[in-house]
């Protein structure tokens, strides 16, 4: 299932609250990932917004901490209340986002490699292992 990139208006309509669901402290561990994400954020006014297959909306943006400065890049789910969101929906949406990401980064990184890895480790969203 694919993600859909959305506008700020669409993300805001999805909810005014945000909950951090994934924090990547080392987006540049393989530099091509950070280069791609930052480029995408730059052309979209600082944050990347997407809708997952579940219909939930997400923002991808830098996470800053007063004492430490930049902590990494976080993925936040947008919601209308403080109540928790079904984690299985988030798991599947994050999987779709990561599939999209590795496909966009390209080169040696591919959806197939991600799916193979996910299948071996039985990650939610990954196909069943043959």
């Amino acid at each position: 299932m694919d993600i859909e990139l959305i506008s700020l208006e669409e993300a805001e309509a999805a909810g005014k609250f945000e909950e951090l669901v994934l924090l990547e402290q080392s987006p540049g561990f393989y530099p091509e990932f950070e280069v791609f994400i930052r480029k995408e954020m730059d052309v979209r006014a600082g944050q990347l917004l997407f809708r997952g297959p579940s219909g939930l909306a997400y923002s991808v943006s830098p996470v800053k901490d007063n004492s430490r400065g930049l902590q990494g890049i976080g993925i936040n789910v947008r919601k209308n209340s403080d109540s928790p969101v079904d984690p299985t929906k988030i798991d599947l949406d994050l999987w779709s986002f990561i599939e999209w990401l590795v496909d966009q980064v390209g080169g040696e990184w591919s959806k197939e490699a991600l799916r193979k890895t996910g299948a071996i480790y039985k990650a939610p969203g990954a196909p069943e292992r043959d």
Partner: protein
Amino acid sequence: MKVDKQEIQIPNAVREIYPFESRWMDVQGYRMHYLDEGERSGAPTVVLLHGNPTWSFLYREVIPLIRSCRAVAPDYLGMGLSDKPADERFYTLENHTRVITEFIERLGIRNIILVVQDWGGPIGLGYAQAHPGNVAGILIMNTWAWPDPSDFHDAVAPWRMLHAPFAGANFFLRQNVLVERGLYLATFRSRHRLKGGPVLEGYRLPFPSVESRIAMLAFPRNIPRRDGDLNWERMRQMEKGLSRLTLPCSLLWGEKDIVFPPSNAHRFQKLIPDCSAPRMIHDGAHFIQEDAPEEIAEEILKLCARTGQRSN
């Protein structure tokens, strides 16, 4: 720095198979958990170093078999019941080695027998090379000590994808796959115990939350692949230093390990001057402490005898 200091209660089912007294030491301003079991007076001191994603629990079946020795098993910061700083950058090989060095010095233990596996290898060998006078012997199991760990580590799938940006945060932090699935995949004889029940519960225990799993993700990101990577030069120097290790060394290897295959054992044997031929465990894999605790205990006691240290 934010620290995950969650008090972890050991449930009865885990306590039954890990019936040891928890001990604590402040190191670098953090609380470090360790075990200190067995004979004290005049017995050799064995320091048991774990890897990723494990903790002193890994040695629970070895410790009772070497009661004639003093057995010390620390949990690295970020692992086991020790404090878990929240900054991934804290967890470098250099810092883990520094913490273990301070731990050994503060405990005041001398002429130790080091037992290392997985990340215990680079951490323990780093200690041994810097403090050769304090190490009487070393048992090396399923690990590495050079910049190119094995072919497994070069492949995109599964290894490099597993800890790639965002994918790694999902696999390690959100899904905890190294505990939930990695332990099962990396054992052989005892694999059935890693599907569920108290053994898996014991490995899950220290990592109940995303915040508690950061060190696990940092470990693979400390493995260098090419010149210029973090730890490349450190591991290169470590490999060169193996030929200067004059202490008695034994090798015990799970033959079915694809992460650190038997060729690594033979490489150690070639590089370390006083190293016996590797003893292969045919139905053992990476987590040999799960697969072959009796054989590990045998090798420790033999090494004690070889180093002239008498176990009571």
